[in-house]
């Protein structure tokens, strides 16, 4: 291997790839060959570096210079100026209040982050096992297999305080202990990579960016519980993650790190990849097990828990991707080190997918106990486009919305739960004041209605009923008592549903009613959506003072409901308007506004219709 003087790390996470990082890489190869310095520069495609908003992102070592939004046409300049003359290209570097950010470490986005599960993500080539080993990979497994017995392994995990990162936060060591203690001829370990929460991409990034780490974590777990066979269950929507894990398993087998008598011990292990087929409920462990068995992904009642009767009725541990990703580091750096981060009940770090209306969307890993304010305003860089913060949605469709008053609460399992949200798998969706909370709640319930497997009736029928009420409210046909009905239904569904999907599905509605009640009431009583999101509860108006009478809106209206003339200006016939918004888009002088509230003509028509139906 020849010595390279420069390491060029190109982020090839999904975000950067779609922003064009592969084209940038090709251009680098061309330019380096042109200048005859290909042999001096090591081009490394890494997994997600995190700050997706800046994509495509590059980091150049040894200096650690961080370049953002690099285009193929910038490459020549980077090579001649930076690589040949040693002068970093300042215009591509990040600036913070006029000051140049000289290296990746100083990028504000990274400042409050602590990388454990993501330690190698964006740092190594995920397709190279050698690079993983160079960062200390498989060292933990070696130590475990050669110096510890299974009970000692579980004790270390117990001392670390690690809890399941998939959502529920169940202590990992308890799951392991249960399966360890059961006598059985066969046991299984499963990695749950069915990350179905909309707005979450943590597991995807870890699987794509550092697959060997997940495999190592799984094997340590397998040794602890006495399993010889493991399954990676990864959703079909993540083809790259599937490819990378398959590749990593193959490499590990070839190197003798997987197979018979690993590290000369008595421990033998095989892993296999199974892919999901697009069913959210399969993230629930019993449904996931059904799916691996080639069945419809219907959950089964617990007990019996998978720890007793799991895959093919054998004791089974199901852990999340991020949980496994934490394991090797716990053994390398010690349980005390891990437990020193976080809060009393929630130890270590948590990976979040920060999205929505913040400046720095992307993948972040922060110590547990960080406040939402730090997460959104420091790491996330605050609200985008000058809008105000309104709410943050945590935990996907099972989670809840928190508001401005919760910004200073620490992020840990218990605190979030008390406030009506949950850690979930780690999707954090920040919403600004332009978002309608009733609409958001409807979106989530709609999601769960679609994804309910239909096995138990509270979830199948109850959620549909909740959806219908919410739909009515957003159409201006809400009634007094609707909110009470929603709460009653929500609580019943939570209590009576068979699996986690139904038990948590009403959360977004219950939490938004709790914190944004007045918004629901204004939808019901005033027939008005103040944020102008619900199409039936706002209307378009042409401001005659600004209108220049050009007739463009009238010509573009698909239902021809705009009429007027150059002198009289134009008006919209409200009862015919379908709120497509074309007129607003095409108006050259921006004379068309969205006005909150149903137009009186439309309201009158609606009430007449309702009266007729009552009389009938």
């Amino acid at each position, binding site marked *: 291997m020849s010595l390279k003087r420069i390491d060029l790390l190109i982020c090839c996470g*999904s*975000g950067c*790839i*779609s*922003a064009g990082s592969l084209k940038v890489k090709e251009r680098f190869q061309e330019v380096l060959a042109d200048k005859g310095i290909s042999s001096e520069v090591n081009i490394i495609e890494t997994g997600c570096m995190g700050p*997706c*908003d800046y*994509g495509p992102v590059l980091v150049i070592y040894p200096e650690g210079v961080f370049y953002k939004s690099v285009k193929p046409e910038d490459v020549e300049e980077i090579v001649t100026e930076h690589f040949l003359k040693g002068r970093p290209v300042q215009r591509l570097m990040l600036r913070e209040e006029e000051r140049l950010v000289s290296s990746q470490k100083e990028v504000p986005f990274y400042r409050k982050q602590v990388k454990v599960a993501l330690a190698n993500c964006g740092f190594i080539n995920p397709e190279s096992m050698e690079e993983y080993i160079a960062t200390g990979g498989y060292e933990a497994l070696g130590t475990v297999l050669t110096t510890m017995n299974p009970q000692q392994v579980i004790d270390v995990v117990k001392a670390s305080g690690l809890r399941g990162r998939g959502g529920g936060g169940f202590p990992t060591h308890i799951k392991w202990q249960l399966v360890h203690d059961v006598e059985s001829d066969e046991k299984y370990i499963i990695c749950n990579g069915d*990350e*179905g*929460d*909309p*707005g*979450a*991409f943590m597991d*995807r990034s870890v699987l794509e960016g550092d697959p060997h780490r997940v495999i190592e974590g799984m094997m340590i777990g397998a040794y602890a519980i006495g399993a010889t066979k493991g399954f990676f269950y990864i959703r*079909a*929507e*993540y*083809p790259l993650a599937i490819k990378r894990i398959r590749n990593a398993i193959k490499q590990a087998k070839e190197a003798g790190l997987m197979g018979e008598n690993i590290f000369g011990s008595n421990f033998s292990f095989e892993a*296999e990849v*199974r*892919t*999901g*087929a*697009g*069913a*959210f409920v399969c993230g629930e462990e019993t449904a996931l097990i059904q*799916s*691996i*068995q*080639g*069945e*419809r*992904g219907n959950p089964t009642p617990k007990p019996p828990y998978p720890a007793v009767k799991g895959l*093919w009725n054998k004791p089974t541990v199901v852990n999340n991707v991020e949980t496994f990703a934490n394991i090797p580091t716990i053994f390398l750096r010690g349980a005390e080190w891990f437990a020193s981060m976080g809060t009393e009940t929630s130890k270590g770090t948590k990976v979040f*997918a920060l*999205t*929505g*209306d913040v400046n720095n*969307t*992307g993948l972040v890993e922060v110590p547990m106990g960080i406040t939402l304010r730090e997460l959104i305003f420091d790491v996330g860089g605050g609200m985008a486009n000058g809008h105000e913060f309104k709410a943050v*949605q945590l935990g*996907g*469709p099972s989670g809840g919305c928190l508001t401005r008053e919760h910004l200073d609460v620490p992020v840990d399992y218990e605190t979030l739960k008390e406030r009506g949200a949950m850690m979930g798998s780690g*999707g954090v*969706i920040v*919403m600004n004041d332009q*978002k309608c909370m009733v609409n*958001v709640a409807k*979106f*989530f319930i709609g*999601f769960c209605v679609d*994804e309910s*497997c239909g096995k138990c009736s509270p979830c199948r029928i109850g959620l549909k009923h909740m959806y219908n009420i919410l739909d009515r409210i957003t159409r201006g046909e809400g009634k007094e008592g609707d909110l009470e009905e929603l709460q009653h239904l929500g609580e019943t569904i939570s209590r009576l549903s068979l699996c986690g999907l139904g038990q948590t599905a009403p959360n977004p509605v219950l939490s938004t009613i709790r914190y944004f009640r007045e918004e629901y009431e204004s939808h019901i009583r005033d027939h008005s959506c103040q944020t102008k999101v619900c199409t039936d509860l706002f209307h378009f108006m042409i401001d005659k003072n600004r209108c220049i009478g050009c007739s463009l809106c009238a010509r573009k209206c698909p239902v021809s409901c705009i009429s007027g003339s150059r002198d009289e200006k134009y008006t919209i016939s409200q009862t015919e308007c379908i709120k*497509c*918004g074309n007129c607003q888009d095409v108006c050259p002088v921006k004379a068309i506004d969205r006005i909150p509230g149903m137009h009186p003509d439309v309201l009158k028509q609606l009430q007449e219709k309702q009266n007729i139906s009552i009389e009938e």
Partner: protein
Amino acid sequence: MTPISPQDNALYERLKEVIEETKSMRNPLIEVLRQAQDIFGYLPIEVQEFIAQEMNIPANKIYGVITFYNFFTMKPRGKYTINLCMGTACYVKGAPRLAQMMEEELGVKIGETTPDGKFTLSAVRCVGACSLAPVFVIGEDTYGRVDTRDKMSAILKRYE
């Protein structure tokens, strides 16, 4: 079973190989169905019956599995499938508007295929590219932050 045409024969031969290859796996039905869908583009009843016979699994069970998972389709698809992401981040960043634009552009609704058989428009759950919201995916290409009709038309024109 309906008779198999010669041109289909090669496809069924490939499916047979897949079934053979997965025999070492325990309960490989979902894997077989995935690959069968790759081979045929969709999973019509005839293919389901073929798999049932080859794998010795009741056809009704196969039908049950196919209808449970969103990934499987029993209708033929267009040459390209456009998957509009309907995840939360995309939703709050304008996925409904993107869907409306896409429907107008192609002249079909979500779940339908254009008459020329080129595009199938479909909605999917989160594709995990939330920082680029709103997002749609064609094949292996992800397109983010498409907010005007012109940008969208330009992208669709790349697909021949």
